[in-house]
């Protein structure tokens, strides 16, 4: 049951196990625990069975189904799946069946992966706990009284609970890495532009990026490698050659220069046990031959504020299309304006409305320069400060989340406190860089997992995987 994606694919391709059996085992696990965890908005049992049978058919016919042959894959429910409900965990999209597949969905199906369900998220990926879902909160499989993080909490929980060895999430300000840390799995945000966003329902277009979840570093690398690459349907997709993420994974960290980011590690609000985990991760890397030093990346301390102007601004525009005219919910009104406003008021949850309001305000006449324009300049500062740090260091290190998974309901009344959960992850999105969260130890009181974050510059994806692998190998030490 706890086979890695790598092993499952190898076994299915060799005909040692059938994809159908693999799917049935995972569906059984889901049947067992999903009621408690609520990782999924939709379990695609029949679709998954048919797809698994097709994979088995390929194997029987002597065709190679691909590198992810028969591996169950959970899809965050903001990824379009043709003819299958895609909701963004919002009432406004409830029941909507996209007429097309996201590019990643097509690519992974072509690689033999078996989509097993659509996972819960904070509505439109806005949140850090997966409590802002119109269809109920997801719980942390490690402790059901706690949140799984968010917004890709359903995907993180699905992997942590053994519902699927692989899952896709999207990361706008930490929405893959933070839940990965809180659920004790590996989660990675690739360099902006390396994975097509076509079919990812937009939250903040200049920040959104699809990335992998897995129980281990190698599976995450395999998943990213399979979906990586240029897509002519996404203007912001870069034509970078396919990196060999998996192949160099065990090349080690000897000679690498690792910098611990002071502004993301040594500041108020970081749980001392989390800080200690970062220190011991640093020691583990040193033991493996890397050199470690502290580094200041000063403007990252403004990342959170810049993010909470830029992301809502883009979101306010991206979410304007949900108006009750072409698809999704409609709440009637006597005229078009009233219908639009009623639909949007009933269709969106509080956090989405809050961010639409914030973003609309930040872009509105008289405030653009002070808020949105200023945030864009801070974004430049962050890019520059990172560039300076990467002249001295190959990768950077920090906590993924300031704390371990918090109690459900503990931050829902205080938006700002919730926003602070993303303080360590946001700068990477603003810069368009890559970063990965890898489990490294647990807290002593609750035995909840702690994640450390490895940050890399643009297109350093293979490098941060290699460092993450080194941590994974040495975490027992």
């Amino acid at each position: 049951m706890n086979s890695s994606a790598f092993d499952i694919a190898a076994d299915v391709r060799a005909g040692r196990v059938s994809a159908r059996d693999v799917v049935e085992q995972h569906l059984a696990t889901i049947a067992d625990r999903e009621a408690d965890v609520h990782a999924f908005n939709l379990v695609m049992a029949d679709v998954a069975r048919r797809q698994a049978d097709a994979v088995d058919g390929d194997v029987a016919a002597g065709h190679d189904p691909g590198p992810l042959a028969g591996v169950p894959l959970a899809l965050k429910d903001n990824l379009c799946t043709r003819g299958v409900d895609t909701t963004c965990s919002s009432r406004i999209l409830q029941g909507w069946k996209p007429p097309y597949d996201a590019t990643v969905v097509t690519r992974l199906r072509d690689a033999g992966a078996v989509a097993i369900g659509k996972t819960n998220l904070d509505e439109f990926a806005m949140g850090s706990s997966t409590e802002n879902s119109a269809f109920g909160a997801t719980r942390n499989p490690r402790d059901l009284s706690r949140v799984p993080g968010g917004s890709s909490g359903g995907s993180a929980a699905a992997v942590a609970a053994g519902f699927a060895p692989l899952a896709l999430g999207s990361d706008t300000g930490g929405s893959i890495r933070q839940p990965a840390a809180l659920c004790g799995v590996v989660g990675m945000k690739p360099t902006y532009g390396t994975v097509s966003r076509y079919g990812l329902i937009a939250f903040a277009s200049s920040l959104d990026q699809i990335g992998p979840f897995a129980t281990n570093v190698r599976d995450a690398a395999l998943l990213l490698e399979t979906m990586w690459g240029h897509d002519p349907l996404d203007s912001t997709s870069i034509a970078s050659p396919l990196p060999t993420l998996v192949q160099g994974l065990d090349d080690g960290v000897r000679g690498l220069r690792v910098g611990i980011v002071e502004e993301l590690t040594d500041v108020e609000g970081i749980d001392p046990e989390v800080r200690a985990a970062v220190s011991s991760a640093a020691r583990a890397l040193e033991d493996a031959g890397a050199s470690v030093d502290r580094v200041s990346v000063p403007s990252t301390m403004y990342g959170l504020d810049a993010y909470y102007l830029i992301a809502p601004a883009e979101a306010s525009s991206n979410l304007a299309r949900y108006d009750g005219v072409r698809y999704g919910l409609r709440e009637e009104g006597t005229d078009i304006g009233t219908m639009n406003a009623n639909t949007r008021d009933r269709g969106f949850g509080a956090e989405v409305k809050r961010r639409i309001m914030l973003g609309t305000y930040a872009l509105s006449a008289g405030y653009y320069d002070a808020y949105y324009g200023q945030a864009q300049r801070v974004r430049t500062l962050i890019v520059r400060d990172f560039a300076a740090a990467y002249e001295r260091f190959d990768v950077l290190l920090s906590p993924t989340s300031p704390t371990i998974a918090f109690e459900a309901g503990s931050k829902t009344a205080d938006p700002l406190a919730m926003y602070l959960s993303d303080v360590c992850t946001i700068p990477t999105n603003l810069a368009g860089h890559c970063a990965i969260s890898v489990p490294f130890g647990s807290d002593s009181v609750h035995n909840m997992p702690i994640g450390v974050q490895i940050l890399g510059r643009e297109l350093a994806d293979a490098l941060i995987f290699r460092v993450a692998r080194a941590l994974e190998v040495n975490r027992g030490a």
Partner: protein
Amino acid sequence: MSVITSASGTEWEIVSGLEVHCELATATKIFCSCANQFGEEPNTNVCPVCLGLPGSLPVLNEKAVEYALRVGEAFHFTVPAQSVFHRKNYFYPDMPKNFQTTQYDEPICEHGWLEVDGVRLGITRAHLEEDTGKSMHMGGAGGRIHGASHSLIDYNRAGVPLLEIVSEPDIRSSEQAAAYVDELRSTLKAIGVSDVKMEEGSLRVDANVSVRRIGDTGFGTRCEIKNLNSLKSLRDAMDHEAARQIEILEDGGEIRQETRLWNENEGHTASMRSKEEAYDYRYFPEPDLVPVQPTDELRAHVRATMPELPAARRTRLMAELSISEQDARTLLSTDGLADFAEAAVVLGAPPRDAALWTTQDVSAHLNVLGGGATVEGLDPGLLVETLQLVSDGLVSRNQGKEVFAAALAGEGRPAQIVADRGLAQVSDSGALGAVVDEVFAANSAAVQEWRDGDDKVRKKKRGFLMGEAMKALKGQGNPQLLNQLIDERLAD
């Protein structure tokens, strides 16, 4: 300068700038691969991108960029190193994403001009953007929005590439505005970027109009007039709006800056919304698209493939064909007409005749055929051969017109038509002389009156004899030879 004299005797002038929206004639829409096609069944040229479905993303059409650059060349624009798309945010149901992707402070073309009747009119900018869908208003009177119970939306037009061309406030009369649009249209058409049909909405004009007293140099408060569907409605609406503003100002009132709609049927403008209600569009850079930086290669390609522009061609036709500006304009007003005349010249027709016969007789032929008839397929050789028959004296000029019309109508080559209709002119002096002798014999009284008469009588009698001779020849006598023979006999 065009002066408007008000009822009180004060002299005013219009100050106007025009915003022209031109649909580009690309095969596909600006950000997706749906067909850019007018008149299809509703919602058949739509896809996830132009319908704004969640998760869809735009990709810019290279042809739209190339066409914008052609416009840049045609109107002497500066093309900045980079242009950027923005989102213009407002809610309207014909706009699938509730924002319009358009260019804002970094347009693809800046600072151009065109010349109208010797006056250079500035063009501030031209920028690329997407068109909206179309609404049908139901349950009200005459399909109007006011009083409708509901509306039906077709998104086939959503995402059609538009180039918005914004002029400087250099226009001083409604005639000049119409001439500006006319020049713009013929040039946009000549460079192949748009079919510029105002009636189908592929060219749409909004006019900013203000007035000022002659001698004033400042600008008055302006109103924007929309819904102008023809050059006539542009002229009428501007004149009407100017009169409205002059009346208010002379009564001591103030002009409210607002958008007004032209009502074609009732012949007036009506307020649509005032500036206080103006939208806050919250422009910001479109994060799903990347900047456009036209390459030297693309710009060179555009330059190398530019056709001759209407203004330059007009000047050349006037010189080469020895015709008036009006005739040159006529040649250029119908597709292919000037090409026909020029082709005839190349094939050997005398230039001026070729031009004038084309403007008159080819145009007449198209008129007879009615709407939809085009020059395409007509053989300029027919004109060359007809003019040759005339200059050879085989047919008269008038007969030539008849022959040419028949040839255009497909009755055959001109020479064949002359033969079939027995039109060949009699140019044999012997045969003509015999006819003249017969006429003189039969009309000796008239000949005598000529001999006795003064100049006035002589002219009359001579004309009579000529007419009799031509009648006897069924109109096919060579008039010059006949005249010559009659004069010889009279002189005997």
